[in-house]
C-alpha cells in the first residue's frame, strides 16, 4: 500500500510533465490539424537554454526559488522564439499544402533541430543545474514527499491554470477557440488567423519550456535526443485524452505518467518505452477520438 502511494506520487509528477508537453501538441493540433513533430525538440532546446543560462549567470550550484524562476523564464523565452521561428519559416509557407507535406516538413524540422544541436552542444549528455535542494519535505510512514515532486506538481498546476485563464478569459484565447472551430469564419469576423496561430505556438512552446526545466530538475541529465521519447509519450497522452482537447491532454498526461510508473514498478522496466505505443494502438483501435474527444463525421 505504501509502495502504491509512493508510485502514485511519482506517477503524478511524471504525468504532469507529460501533460505540459501534451498541451503543446494538442493546442497546435486543435488549430492547424497537424502533428507538430518538432515540439519535442523545442522542449529539448528549452532544457539547453536553461542549462546555458545557469552557466552564464553562474547559478549552477545555487538551488533555490529564484533559480527556478530565472531558468523557467529563460527556457520559456527560448522555446517561444524557436516555436515562432518554426511556425513562420517552415509551416506558414505550407498552410495550403497537402497534409502529408506538412507532416514531412515537421519531421524534417525535428531532425534538423536534433542533429544540429548534436553538433552545437555535443552529443554527450550534460548535467542539468541543481534547481531545488532535493530533500524530503514530509514523510507519511514510508511514503516520501520530495521537494522536487512538489515543485513539479506546483509549477505545472500553476502553468495549467494560467493556460486555462488565457484560453477562457482573454481576447486572444477567445480567438484561438474561434480559429480551432472554424478558421475561415473566424477570419471573416476579423480575427487575424496568422497572429492567432503564432500565439498558439508561443503558448504551446513555453509550456514545453516549463516542462523541460521540470524534467531537468527531476532527471538531471540532458542531451540533444532527450526530446524524442518524452515527446512521443506526450503525444500519446494527447491522443489518449482526445487530441485537440485541452482537458483531455491533462487527463491523458496524468494517466500516462501513472500507468508508466505502475508498469515499471510491478511488471518490467525494460518495456516502459513500448508501453506508450501499446496504449496508443489500443486507443486508436477502440476509441480513435480519445477519452474526452468527440468523434466527428466527415462530410463531403
Amino acid at each position, binding site marked *: 500500500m505504501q509502495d502504491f502511494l509512493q508510485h502514485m506520487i511519482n506517477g503524478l509528477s511524471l504525468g504532469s510533465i507529460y501533460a505540459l508537453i501534451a498541451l503543446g501538441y494538442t493546442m497546435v493540433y486543435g488549430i492547424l490539424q497537424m502533428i507538430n513533430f518538432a515540439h519535442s525538440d523545442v522542449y529539448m532546446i528549452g532544457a539547453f537554454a536553461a542549462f546555458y543560462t545557469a552557466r552564464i549567470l553562474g547559478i549552477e550550484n545555487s538551488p533555490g526559488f529564484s533559480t527556478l524562476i530565472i531558468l523557467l523564464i529563460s527556457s520559456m523565452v527560448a522555446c517561444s522564439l524557436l516555436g515562432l521561428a518554426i511556425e513562420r519559416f517552415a509551416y506558414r509557407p505550407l498552410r495550403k499544402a497537402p497534409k*502529408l507535406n506538412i507532416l*514531412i516538413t515537421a519531421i524534417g524540422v525535428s531532425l534538423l533541430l536534433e542533429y544540429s544541436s548534436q553538433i552545437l552542444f555535443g552529443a554527450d549528455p550534460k548535467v542539468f543545474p541543481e534547481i531545488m535542494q532535493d530533500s524530503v519535505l514530509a514523510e507519511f510512514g514510508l511514503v516520501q514527499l520530495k521537494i522536487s515532486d512538489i515543485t513539479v506538481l506546483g509549477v505545472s498546476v500553476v502553468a495549467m491554470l494560467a493556460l486555462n485563464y488565457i484560453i477562457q478569459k482573454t481576447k486572444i484565447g477567445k480567438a484561438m477557440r474561434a480559429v480551432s472551430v472554424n478558421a475561415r469564419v473566424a477570419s471573416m469576423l476579423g480575427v487575424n488567423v496568422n497572429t492567432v496561430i503564432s500565439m498558439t505556438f508561443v503558448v504551446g512552446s513555453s509550456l514545453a519550456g516549463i516542462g523541460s526545466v521540470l524534467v531537468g530538475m527531476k532527471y538531471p541529465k540532458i542531451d540533444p535526443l532527450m526530446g524524442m521519447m518524452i515527446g512521443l509519450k506526450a503525444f500519446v497522452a494527447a491522443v489518449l485524452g482526445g487530441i485537440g482537447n485541452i482537458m483531455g491532454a491533462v487527463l491523458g498526461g496524468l494517466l500516462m505518467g501513472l500507468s508508466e510508473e505502475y508498469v515499471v514498478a510491478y511488471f518490467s522496466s*525494460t518495456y516502459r518505452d513500448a508501453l506508450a505505443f501499446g496504449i496508443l494502438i489500443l486507443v486508436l483501435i477502440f476509441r480513435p477520438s480519445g477519452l474526452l474527444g468527440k468523434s466527428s463525421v466527415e462530410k463531403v
Partner: protein
Amino acid sequence: MKFLKQPALLAIGMICIGLILNFGTNAYIQLTSLFVLVNCLMAMSLNLVNGYTGQFSLGHAGFMALGAYFSAYASMHWPLFSGPLAILNFVLTTLGSGLLAAFAGYVVGLPSLRLKGDYLAIVTLGFGEIIRVSLLNMDFVGGARGLSGIPSIPNLDLGFMVIEHYMVSFLFSTFWFVTCFFVIWRIMHSSHGRGFLSVREDEIAAEAMGIDTTKTKVRAFVLSSFFAGVAGALFCHATNYISPSSFNFQKSVDAIIMVVLGGMGSMSGSICAAIFITLLPEILRSLKEYTGGIDFRMVIYSLSLILVMLLRPQGLFGQTEITDLWKKYVKRSN
C-alpha cells in the same frame, strides 16, 4: 530505354555490372553495392505505401528488422540443406523473412490503416519502436549485443565452375531487386494499382466508386512490408552482424528521405535517390576529416527534406519516371 521494361534484359545488364564489380573492384565497393541494392528495395517498397497509396509509414525499419532477424536466426539454427545445395537455405530464409514481415504488416496494418495520415505515421513509428525494444529484450537473438556470425551466402559450385560468393549475393540481391521492381510496376499498371492511386488522390471519392479503401491500403502495406523483410534478410547476410540499433528510427527516416527526395510515386526516382543516399555518406567520409569527425549527414538530409517540401513538394522526380523524361526530351529531338 525500352529494355528497362524487359525483366530478362534488365537482369543481363545487372549481371554485367556484377561481373565488373566482382573482378574490377575491392571488397569495400562490393559491400557498398549490396547496400545500394538493399536500400533500393527499401525505397521501392516504401514508395508503394508513401508514394502511390498516399499513406505515411514511419516504421519501415521495423519490418526490415523482422526480416533480418528471422533470416539470420534461421540460417544459423535451421540449416535444411548442406553442401552444394546450401544456397537453397538462403532462398528459403529470405522468402520466410518476407512472409513474416508481410504477416506483421497485415497485423499492424489492419487496425491502423483505418486511421488518417498523421495517426498512421505515429502508429507505424510506435510499431517500429516496439519491434526494436522487443528485440533488445530477446536473449535468444542476442539482445542488445546483437547477433554476430551470420553466414554469408556461400560460393556456388556448378561443377564446371565456381561462382564466387560475392557474385552469388549480388545476383541474389539483383533477383529480388528485379522482382520487386516488376511486381510493383505491374501492379501499378493493373486495376489494383489504380485502386492505390485513387486512395491517394481522394479517399472519399474512391470509396464512392466502390473501392474498399481499408483493404486497398492493407494490401499495399502488406506487399511493402514483404519487400522490406526481404531487404532485411539481404542486409543481414551482407553485413554478417545485426543489432537492434541497426534498425532504429534513423533507418526508417533514411527510407523516407529516399522516397521523398526521389518523388513520391516514382519508381525510378526512388531508385535514384536510394543510390544517391547510400553513396553520399561514403563520399562525405573524406569530408569528415575537415569537420573534425562531426557527422553533417543528418543535418544535410533534414535540411534537404524541408527545402524539397517547401520548394518542390512533389519530390525531385514528382510522379514521372525516367522513361517519361526520355520520351519527352530525347525522342522529340530526333
